[in-house]
């Protein structure tokens, strides 16, 4: 890896639920502008790690820092204010609102106006509202959902809902994006388009941490891969290194799957 500055540091993080150890001792770093994937079998602790990094879960030990700010004690919405935005595996949309309104909700961080200004409909509030609507339109176009703008988000196909989820996260203007299994439920061509989208996001200078099961997709898109098993990191490196790592093949990909 080159001399990139560090975006996120995960330092000796452990998470225990009673006697169950979800993460035992996890340390790794994500550089600015990098695409890092976190992989591992089901139950390896990937989503738990995400929850710790975004304040939805307090770690039993260890620390997480983003751009030199320790995240301990911060609420999820405060972490979002640092520019650290995540997506979710299952609940990725506001189902009863249109796709367009979903994005307007997602633009929360851009649209803060004083409540009184909004109630009195002062020019400042109206201008901010216009800006938000324009931005929502741009985001729709970026993820390719213009045609679905006025459909209820809950009525979209599963793959499209994942896209809305990503657009929502982008609306929050992340400097780092954490994607939790974004291509599950997508077909091959949708996945292919999604890989392009992720690269496009990175090209805008947004750091990406990805949790994903789709191995070909992970191998294509990642700069670096971190492999978790039973709450421990068992390997870390470029896709090429991971593909040939015997421990990974043994624990995760299974025998003879090294050519995946």
């Amino acid at each position, binding site marked *: 890896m080159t001399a990139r500055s560090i975006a996120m540091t995960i330092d000796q993080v452990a998470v225990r639920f009673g006697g169950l150890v979800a993460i035992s001792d996890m340390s790794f770093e994500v550089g600015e502008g990098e695409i890092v994937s976190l992989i591992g079998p089901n139950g390896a602790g990937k989503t738990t790690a995400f929850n710790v990094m975004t304040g939805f879960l307090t770690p039993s030990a260890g620390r997480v820092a983003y751009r030199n700010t320790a995240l301990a004690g911060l609420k999820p*919405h405060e972490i979002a204010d640092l520019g650290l935005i995540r997506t*979710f595996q299952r609940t990725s949309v506001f189902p009863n609102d249109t796709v367009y309104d979903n994005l307007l*909700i997602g633009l929360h961080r851009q649209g803060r106006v004083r409540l009184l200004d909004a*109630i009195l409909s002062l020019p400042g509030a109206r201008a901010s509202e216009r800006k938000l609507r324009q931005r929502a339109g741009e985001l729709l176009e970026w993820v390719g959902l*213009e045609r679905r703008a006025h459909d209820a988000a809950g009525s979209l196909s599963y793959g499209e809902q994942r896209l809305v989820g990503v657009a929502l996260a982008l609306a*929050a203007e992340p400097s780092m994006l954490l994607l939790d299994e974004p291509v599950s439920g997508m077909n091959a061509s949708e996945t292919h388009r999604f890989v392009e989208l992720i690269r496009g996001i990175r090209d805008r200078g947004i750091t990406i941490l990805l949790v994903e099961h789709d191995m070909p997709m992970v191998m294509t898109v990642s700069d670096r891969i971190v492999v978790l098993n039973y709450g421990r990191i068992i390997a870390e490196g470029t896709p090429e290194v991971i593909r040939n790592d015997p421990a990974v093949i043994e624990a995760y990909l299974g025998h003879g799957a090294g050519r995946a």
Partner: protein
Amino acid sequence: MRAAVTILAVAALASVPLWLRDPYLLNALITTGIFVIGAMSLNLLLGFTGQLSLGHIAFFGIGAYVSALTSLGFDIGLPGGFRLVHTPWPPILGFVLAILIAGLCGYFVGLLSFRVRGAYFVIVTISFAEVVRLVALNWVELTQGPLALTNIPFIALPLPGLGELTLRTKMQNYYLVLVVALIAYLLIARLVHSHFGRSMRGLMENETLAVSVGIDVTRTLTIAAVISAAIAGAAGSLYAHYIRIIDPEVFAFINTVTMVIMVISGGKGSLAGPVVGGLIFGLLPVALRPVMAPEAQWIAYGGVLIAILFVLPRGIVPSLAQRLTRRRSGTTALAPVTLTETGAKEPA
């Protein structure tokens, strides 16, 4: 189209005292209007944040008592031999104080109970209303307890240069209630369509996701509770100065239930819902009075509510609106939206 309906509805409501001479009916309309304001405030919480406040009448009652006591004055003993004496102030100040103090109570209830949402919020609000009722019942020195506060003055509007206009007649009070209701309606409409309204909706639909894009749950819900309580307090103040006698029974649970019925039947989460539901259930007693005993009327309300929700499950206004759009989109397919259209769209 929607604006036209609103203006027509307001014009129709404004014209009522001009052709309706029956004081009994006008009285029913005024009290209904006051309860509609209460129902609108309840809808702000129930319909737009999803939190059911089953003690909502507490804010209404607090508004009523604050306003009445401000305009009547009081003289009470405090611990340590002190006395707190308040000389009567103009009722209009009571109205303002009712809004502020009810809003403050909304702040504390919100702060306390939004840490524990859902069923817990329901319990906290019920308990709050019951505690306030017991205080009103037992702090006889301040509230006269069950003997009620009587002779509450009419609201008087200060007119610059002209002195005061005391609102004595039913017609004057009708217009007062109508104006306050309109302001409350517009305030809620602006709020709901603003950035803040979208935060509320986001929290109601998917709290985890809303939090992840930076929406502050506690702040959003507390602000909604404050505004909702303040509007309920305003309604309570109107009630006190119109009825001119209040006793602890204003805190009765059945009054909250009435508001909830108004909101649910009209359609929670729709701006016009509580108005429509409120008019139906506010005026139903008037319609049923000649034919039914009061006890039997409650059964009839239940029947009407069930009938409404059976035919229009989401409440009158949302269900009808849905049918209307479905019929329209059946003939003309929705055109795909282009970027220029969405970009140029004016805020609602």
